[in-house]
Each structure stands twice: as structure tokens, then as C-alpha cells.
């Protein structure tokens, strides 16, 4: 009797606090996901009225698809560089901009602006920058490496993508780090400095643990965004020159819609999801553990 009551209270508490989110989460994400999962076992092309069940056929084709593997490797390289550079830059910016520099509000707003330009427009602006402005500058001040466009050489186009991603995401992550820094209570800092914990020691032992949540969130978000990047890839390089910058989302997308192999495209998306989920949940789990220890 008492046990049942406890369960009811639990259920009541859950519904009041987490009910709406749970409902929306299930109906907007989980159910469509399961339906999508079902479609990976069919040969549906996305349009036709009829389709047949094909078992694991779609999944088998993925591992034979050298394009998929190649694109995945390229994406890993892109993710590693972008995540590392973005977080280093945004952490530093946040540290400087919460240390009482003159005009920090003004600066924060400035670093934040890249987030305001979205998708396709952003691509046009940067394409213009790389193809016209940078080369124009290269010719005027005679720097040979700048005279050819970054976007036209297969090696450099990749770095152009990384650069734009860092530029775009670091302002966003900076905000999260700033929130973290602001959550460090002033008295903690004061106490630390009285104890003689100066400089680096202070950062390491006092501040770092307190902004660990920001770290967890930012690294996770950059991981997620860079793995899933599509807009900028499309607008800036369209995968070119000659498919050397075709990141995984674009590859999957083209498979599903341009080649009208919806079942295979969806199966590739599921495989990608599993890979990224393993990586990021491990990351979150490890850093949450660190948070607790700290």
C-alpha cells in the first residue's frame, strides 16, 4: 500500500516536472526516428507508392561503399581540428572577456555576430571573401600563396571549411563559457586568492572545476555541430573541388535525395548516428564524471 503510494507520488512528480518535455520528445523525435528506422529496411525511393522489405540489404551496401568510408574519414579529420581550435579560441575569448577588460560588452557582441548570419548567405559571403577579396589582396601585396583561391585547391579548401567553422561557432561557444565563468562566485575567487592560490594554480584548482559544465556542453555541441555540418559545406564548397570536401552529411543527403535511394541514405544516417552517439555520450559521461570528482 505504502509502496504503491510512493510510486504514485513519483509518477505525479515526474508528470508535473518532466511531463511536457517527455511528451514532446517522444512524439517529435523518438517516433519519427523509429519510423525512419523502419524505412531503412525497405527499398523505398522516397516517393513511390509501393516499396518492399529488403532486410539488412541497405546496411550491407554501406560498408561496401568506398565513398561513404572516405567521406567519414574526412569528416573525422574535420571534427578533430574544428572542435579543438573552436574550444581553445572560445575559452580564451571568454576568459579575457570576463576579466574586466574595457569595453567587454562591445567585444562580446562583436564576437557573437558570426552566429547571426546563417546558412546559405554565410556561404556566399565567405565564398566571395576567399575567391575575390583574399586573392585581390594577394595580388596587391604580392603574396604568392594568397593569389590562388583557397577554395580551388583540394588541400586548402578543407582548411577554409575549418576556418569558417571556427569563426562561426567560437562566438556561440564563447557565450557558454562566459556563462560558466560568471557562475564562478566572486567570493570563491577571493577566497582562493587569499589562500595564495595565484595565477595558474587558481585557474587549475578553483576555476576549472567550476566551469567544467561549460566544457562538457561546449565540447559536446561542437562535436555535434561539426559532425552534422551541412549548410556551410553546401554553400561554401558544395563538396568541391571535385568532391574533396564532401563531408558526411552532404554525402548521405545526396544519396537519399539526389540519387533517390532513400532507404540507403536513411540507413547511412542511422550508422552515422550510432557512431556519433557513441563518441559524444562517452565524452559527456567522462566529463560528467570529472565534474563530480571536482
Amino acid at each position, binding site marked *: 500500500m505504502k509502496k504503491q503510494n510512493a510510486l504514485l507520488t513519483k509518477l505525479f512528480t515526474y508528470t508535473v516536472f518532466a511531463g511536457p518535455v*517527455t*511528451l514532446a520528445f*517522444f*512524439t517529435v523525435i*523518438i*517516433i519519427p526516428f*523509429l*519510423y525512419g528506422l*523502419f*524505412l531503412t529496411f525497405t527499398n*523505398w*525511393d*522516397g*516517393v*513511390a*507508392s*509501393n*516499396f518492399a522489405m529488403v532486410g539488412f540489404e541497405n546496411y550491407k551496401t554501406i560498408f561496401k561503399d568506398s565513398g561513404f568510408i572516405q567521406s567519414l574519414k574526412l569528416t573525422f579529420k574535420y571534427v578533430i581540428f574544428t572542435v579543438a581550435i573552436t574550444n581553445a579560441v572560445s575559452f580564451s575569448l571568454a576568459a579575457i572577456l570576463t576579466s574586466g577588460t574595457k569595453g567587454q560588452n562591445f567585444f562580446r557582441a562583436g564576437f557573437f555576430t558570426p552566429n547571426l548570419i546563417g*546558412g*546559405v548567405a554565410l556561404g*556566399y559571403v565567405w*565564398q*566571395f571573401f576567399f*575567391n*575575390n577579396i583574399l*586573392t585581390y589582396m594577394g595580388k596587391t601585396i604580392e603574396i604568392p600563396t594568397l*593569389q*590562388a*583561391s583557397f*577554395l*580551388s*585547391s*583540394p588541400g586548402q579548401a578543407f582548411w577554409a571549411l575549418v576556418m569558417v567553422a571556427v569563426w562561426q561557432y567560437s562566438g556561440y561557444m564563447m557565450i557558454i563559457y562566459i556563462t560558466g565563468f560568471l557562475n564562478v562566485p566572486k567570493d570563491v575567487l577571493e577566497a582562493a586568492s587569499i589562500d595564495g592560490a595565484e595565477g595558474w594554480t587558481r585557474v587549475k584548482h578553483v576555476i576549472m572545476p567550476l566551469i567544467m559544465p561549460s566544457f562538457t556542453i561546449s565540447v559536446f555541441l561542437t562535436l555535434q555541430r561539426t559532425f552534422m555540418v551541412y*549548410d556551410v559545406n*553546401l*554553400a561554401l564548397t*558544395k563538396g*568541391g*573541388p*571535385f*568532391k574533396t570536401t564532401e563531408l558526411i552529411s552532404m554525402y548521405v543527403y*545526396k544519396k537519399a*535525395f*539526389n*540519387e*533517390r535511394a*532513400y532507404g540507403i541514405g536513411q540507413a547511412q544516417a542511422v550508422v552515422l548516428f550510432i557512431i556519433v552517439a557513441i563518441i559524444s555520450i562517452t565524452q559527456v559521461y567522462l566529463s560528467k564524471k570529472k565534474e563530480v570528482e571536482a
Partner: protein
Amino acid sequence: MNKSKKVLSLLLCGVMGLSFGVGCAKDPAVSSNQNQTSESQSAANTDKAGQGEAVKIAFLNSKGEIQAQLENMAKSFNEDYPNITVEIMPCPVGQSPTEILTTMYAANNTPAIVMLDPADVAAFKDKASDLSDEKWVSDAMPGSLDTLKADDKLIGFPFAVEGWGLIYNKAVLDEAGVDASAINTTSELEDAFKKIEASGKKGVVITSADWSLGAHLFTTAYSGQADNMSDIKAFLNGLAGGSTQIKDNAVVNGLLDTFDVMKKYNIAKSDPLSATYETNPEVIGSEKVGFWFMGNWAWSPIKDFAGDNTAFGFIPVPVSNNEADYGNNHMPAATTKALILDTAVNSKEQQEAAKTFLNWIVYEAKGQKGLVEECSIIPAFTNITLEINDPLGKSIQSYIKDGKTSIGVMLSNKHWGDVGAAMQKYLGDYSTREELFAEITTYWTSGDYK
């Protein structure tokens, strides 16, 4: 779709039932039927009350540059047919019309008229209405309907004919003493480039976009194979089946020889892959080069830079040094945009209204005027005699009139993606001709071409 809907409903019920204990008594088949009717009712209801048979139809436009003109056409159509309202929906950049249409079908919210690339038409054959008995079929230009058929049904309306080749700026050519109409071999083209360079300008600009290289430039070699569709098809089937080798083909090699010459006199020679479609119009419009490989859609961006100069035209890309060879005098042209009419979601009245709109375009003076003079579109119908206003369209139109067009070959997205990428490598000197052939052969044997 019905099958997938049932599965979906079951799934939905199952998960709902498990997680929230909600019962699910609705019969999925019934509910989907209800959707169908309520869909068409709501579409009808949104119209002004009082006009008994008011019909509202939507038109998905994938040619963004004529959005405003199409809206004007819809308005003047509404003056002639007050009970039919046509709403023009633009198709956003970065999303292909097929992708949008795919999601629209999933959502049961499909426009009555959809503008597609011909290569995508066949995918929607289950949903598109059979237009074989329409009046305009007999007035369509020969060949313009070839790519719009599936299973012996005609499912597409040829909305626009476009041609592609070397655009020239006559002012530059005159200054260098070059007569465009006399160029019909590779070496004559090279001479022209040389003369232009001697006059202090550059010969040509090549847009490095994969769609331009893959879908238009390289397919010129397919067009040059023969003057009839069945021979071209036989050639393509040979490539797909492996019985024909691309590297042995004379037209392909001839075209690439010309391409080599173009590469040599390219204004962007030092960095060929940086030449983009957005900035190339400036180069030809403001007289920095004599030629640009592109199609007649490029007039409106060129116009911005050409000022009062309207002396522009086309010549075909030569494919050999023998001026009598087929491709040297013929411009590839094809139906590049087709309209399909939906039957799966739209009501009978809406489908009829859509057909009325198409007939209005082909046969009514206002419709013809809107299409040709306002949208600057080359019509695919022989009964329309109006002349287009822009010089590039005019040039293609005169090739059509003289019977000097070849069949533009429109293939799948994968074709231009793969071949376009291979051509980019070749353009940027990242690969040799042998490697280019190997990559193109890989596409042809991949099974994409059916």
C-alpha cells in the same frame, strides 16, 4: 504510401500506448482517407465565399529568377479565369525541387503544378497526371517531349527550352577582327582566341561549377553523336553496358581537344577552379573576355555589366577540325524545365484548373506574352511565334528556326555530380585525359543510368 501509413499508424499507436497508455482506436485506412478529403475541402474552403466553384492551386517554381514574372502571369490568368487562383511558391536555393517535392508528398501537401528538371520527372510517374491527350501535345516542338515520358505516358509539360554553348561578346570580337559565324572548327576557335589576346583581352572564361562542366559542357559530346534520340540512346546504352569505350569516341576526344584549347586561353588559367558562375558575367559583360561557356539563362546577370551593349550571341563548341562534322554547326538545346501535374493529393477540380492554366500559357495571347516576353523563356511550342527580347534567347531561337540545334542530353544528378567532378580535376590539371576517361567510365558502369 498507404502501406507505409498503416505501418506508421501501428508504430505510432504502439509507442503512444506504451509510453502514455493512450488508446488508439482509429482505423488508419479511414483516417488517411479523411485526410485526403479534408485536404481538398480545406483547399477549396480557403477561397472567397460566394464564388461557387472557386479553385485555388499552387505552383512550385524552381526557376527563382522568374518568380516575380510568374506571379504577374498568375495575376493576369486570374483576370481571365476569376474562379482560379494560382499561387506561385518559390523553391529555396540549396534544396533541390525533388527533395522539396518528396517532403511535400510525405506531408500530403503537394502543389497542383510542379516545375522539375526533366531527369527527375520519371521518379514521380505514380503521382503525375497523364497529359498524352492534351491539345498542346500536337503543337510541341519535335523532340521536346522525349524526356518527359514514362511507361508510354506523357507526364511532363515542356516549360522551357534552353541551349548552351560559347557565348560571345561581339564588341570584343569586332575589336579583334573575329567573325563569330565563321568559327566552326577547333583550330578556327584557337585562331579567334589568339586574335583576341593580341587585342589585349583574354579569350574565354570557363565556369568551374560541376553542373556546368558535367551537365552542359561534357554532354555536348553526347549531343554530337547523332541527330536523333535513338542513336544517342544506343550510344549511352553502349557506355552503360561496357560495349562502347568512351576513350575511343571521336566526338568525345574532339570536344576535349577543344576544351584543352579553351583551358589554354582561359582568363582564370592560373587558378581555373576559382572561376564561379556568380562572378563570370562581369568578365564577359564588361569586355574582358570574348567567350564564356554557358547557357541562355545567363543573360540577366550579364546585362548588369554590359550596359547598352546587347550584341551577344552563341556559337556551338566545335568538336573537330572538319567543319562539316555534325556537332560543329549545331547548338545543343533541350527542354530543361518541365511541369508535372499532381493527381495524388489535388482534387479533380484542381487538376482541371492546372490543365487550364497550361493551355492558357500555350494558346492565349496573354499567356504567351508572359512566358516569352516577360519570363524570357524559349517556348517549346511551334504555335508561339513571339520573339524573345534578350539577345541570348534570340540567338538560340534562331538556331532552332534554322534547324541548327542538336539534342541536349539531360541525365541524372549523379551524372553531373560524378562527371562534373572528373571534369573539374581535368580543368585544374589534377588529372590526365586517361584518368578523366577512367572516372567517367566508372560512372557509366555504376548502374546509375538505367
